[in-house]
């Protein structure tokens, strides 16, 4: 055998870059091993504790671990496939946070239904691993691998309530559309390889610099953007989201809306800004169409929804559009605005889903919010905070986030898009404020909700705090949100 000697082998310096992922995988494997032993015993709560511990450890690792062969922050490993730059660190911490919050919010749904606990938490952990891999990969193939791991685990999570036909239907729909999206993504990757001869993101960028525009490249970019747009549920690739969110249990829907959207945005950001940085002119058009359609369709269709999970699904579609606005400019400031948007959006959407989860069956429909303020003033106030944030009203983090992306669009001279975004914000205000009206100005119809589990209250407190502090200290995230 010749040539084996120079096969690049994983060294300690490489593995250090994957410490957050390794922590999550280790915990997931432990859960899978003992799954049957801890089912339906008091030990079952270990799964929750273990997941949160792993998420915290992964977040710490993503913040503190310094690559060994110190090229500093931009160190890469595994033959230039994995990195731990500021961009990856930012999203890894965000994903760990959404994992921990989703685990906290899952307690009631796990108690109420016959869901195998250890498997549920293992799937959450593995999905988060996939997300982290996707945000830290510098090669389209590892990126695809991460996105796929995330999607496969999410599909099982959506259908994990096997006794409910709605959950099965949602999982099948999600599976079919996700496989289609994967095919598009792979086809895009293969065409990109055909044009540039590389799957490495930096190599693609250098191959494209100075070359003439190629029609095949346009198709490749379109397919890549479409494949990743499926993951963030941007219109016209959004159709799966409302059904999947409605069929899934509320915590799973929250996790999908928060974590997988953040990971998809991160992957899209790296591909658009680094790999196709020299093709910004064409890419701008694709992204602008995706963003404009998402904002319009998400805001308008949300008006007619009466199921809270569907309503939040359309809201998340609109927010995917707003987050995309930052990528259109193609500048580091724009990317930083998108990162800020993704971060604050994760917390406010997890918060809104958290209130829905806290109210149980009652929270699933819009009518359940009638007269909530009279029965549970504190809960209603927290929900109002999240609704204000989702609308984008100061002094919440939602305003800071929306201001950042709209500013980046204006600076890139796309005033029409900015105007559209503001108008649709007003439309979406109607959606969110209707819930507030139901809470504060209607008579209660249902009996007051029972006490929330302490874990749900804790998750609500964290999300509310971030939503509030992010609004009061608007530049708190700026040092962290570094573009790829």
């Amino acid at each position: 055998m010749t040539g084996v000697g120079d096969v690049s082998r994983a060294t300690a310096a490489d593995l250090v870059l994957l410490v957050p992922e390794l922590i999550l995988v280790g915990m997931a494997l432990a859960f899978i091993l003992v799954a049957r032993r801890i089912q339906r015993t008091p030990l079952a709560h270990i799964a929750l504790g273990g997941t949160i511990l792993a998420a915290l450890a992964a977040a710490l690792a993503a913040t503190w671990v310094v690559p060994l062969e110190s090229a500093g922050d931009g160190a890469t490993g595994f033959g230039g496939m994995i990195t731990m730059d500021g961009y990856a660190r930012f999203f890894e911490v965000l994903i760990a946070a959404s994992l921990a919050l989703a685990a906290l919010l899952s307690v009631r749904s796990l108690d109420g239904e016959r869901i195998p606990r250890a498997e549920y938490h293992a799937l959450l952990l593995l999905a988060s691993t996939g997300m982290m891999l996707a945000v830290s990969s510098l090669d389209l193939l590892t990126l695809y691998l991460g996105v796929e791991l995330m999607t496969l685990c999410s599909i099982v999570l959506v259908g994990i309530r096997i006794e409910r036909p709605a959950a099965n239907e949602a999982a099948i729909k999600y599976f079919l559309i996700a496989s289609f999206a994967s095919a598009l993504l792979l086809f895009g990757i293969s065409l990109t390889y055909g044009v540039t001869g590389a799957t490495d993101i930096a190599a693609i960028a250098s191959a494209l610099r100075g070359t003439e525009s190629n029609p095949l490249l346009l198709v490749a970019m379109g397919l890549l953007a479409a494949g990743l747009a499926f993951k963030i549920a941007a219109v016209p690739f959004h159709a799966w989201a409302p059904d999947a969110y409605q069929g899934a249990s509320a915590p799973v829907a929250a996790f999908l809306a928060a974590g997988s959207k953040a990971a998809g945005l991160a992957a899209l950001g790296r591909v658009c800004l680094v790999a196709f940085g020299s093709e910004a002119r064409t890419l701008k058009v694709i992204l602008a169409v995706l963003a404009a359609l998402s904002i319009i369709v998400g805001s308008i269709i949300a008006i007619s929804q009466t199921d809270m999970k569907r309503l939040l699904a359309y809201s998340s579609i609109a927010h995917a559009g707003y987050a995309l606005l930052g990528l259109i400019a193609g500048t580091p400031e724009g990317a930083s605005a998108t990162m800020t948007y993704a971060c604050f959006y994760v917390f406010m959407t997890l918060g809104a889903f958290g209130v829905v989860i806290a109210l149980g069956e009652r929270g699933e429909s819009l009518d359940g919010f009638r007269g909530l303020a009279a029965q549970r003033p504190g809960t209603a106030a927290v929900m109002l905070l999240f609704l204000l944030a989702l609308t984008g009203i100061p002094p919440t983090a939602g305003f800071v986030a929306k201001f950042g992306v709209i500013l980046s669009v204006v600076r890139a001279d796309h005033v029409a898009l900015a105007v559209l975004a503001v108008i649709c914000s007003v439309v979406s205000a109607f959606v969110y404020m209707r819930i507030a009206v139901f809470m504060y100005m209607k008579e209660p119809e249902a009996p007051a909700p029972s006490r929330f589990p302490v874990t749900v209250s804790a998750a609500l407190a964290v999300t509310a705090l971030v939503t509030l502090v992010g609004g009061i200290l608007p530049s708190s995230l700026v040092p962290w949100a570094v573009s790829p």
Partner: protein
Amino acid sequence: MSEYIGIAVTFVLAGGIAAAMVILGSTLGRKNPTSAKLAPFECGKEPFSLPMGRLAIKFYLTAILFILFDVELVFLYPWAVVYRDLGFPGLAEMGVFLGVLMVGFVYAWDNGALDWK
């Protein structure tokens, strides 16, 4: 091109023999049709049926377990070929890989996937 002539000859021969059998049979043969003879022949299987037959779910489980070991083999063969060059790190890496796969197997075993009932 000349190396493809053999393939072309095979195609012509195969097509010719098949066509000759059908044509000779339909022109020279005696016709004595019954309903069974007129039905399309498919090796004892019902040629047309709706896909609503029932299939035990345990076959799917077996198929998935098969994939577990199949994937393992896909990686074991090339690894075995270069085993000497990879040395101890290669052994350790394969150990980790097999360990992760075995976790899945232990899970399946633990949950009764191997009980054929």
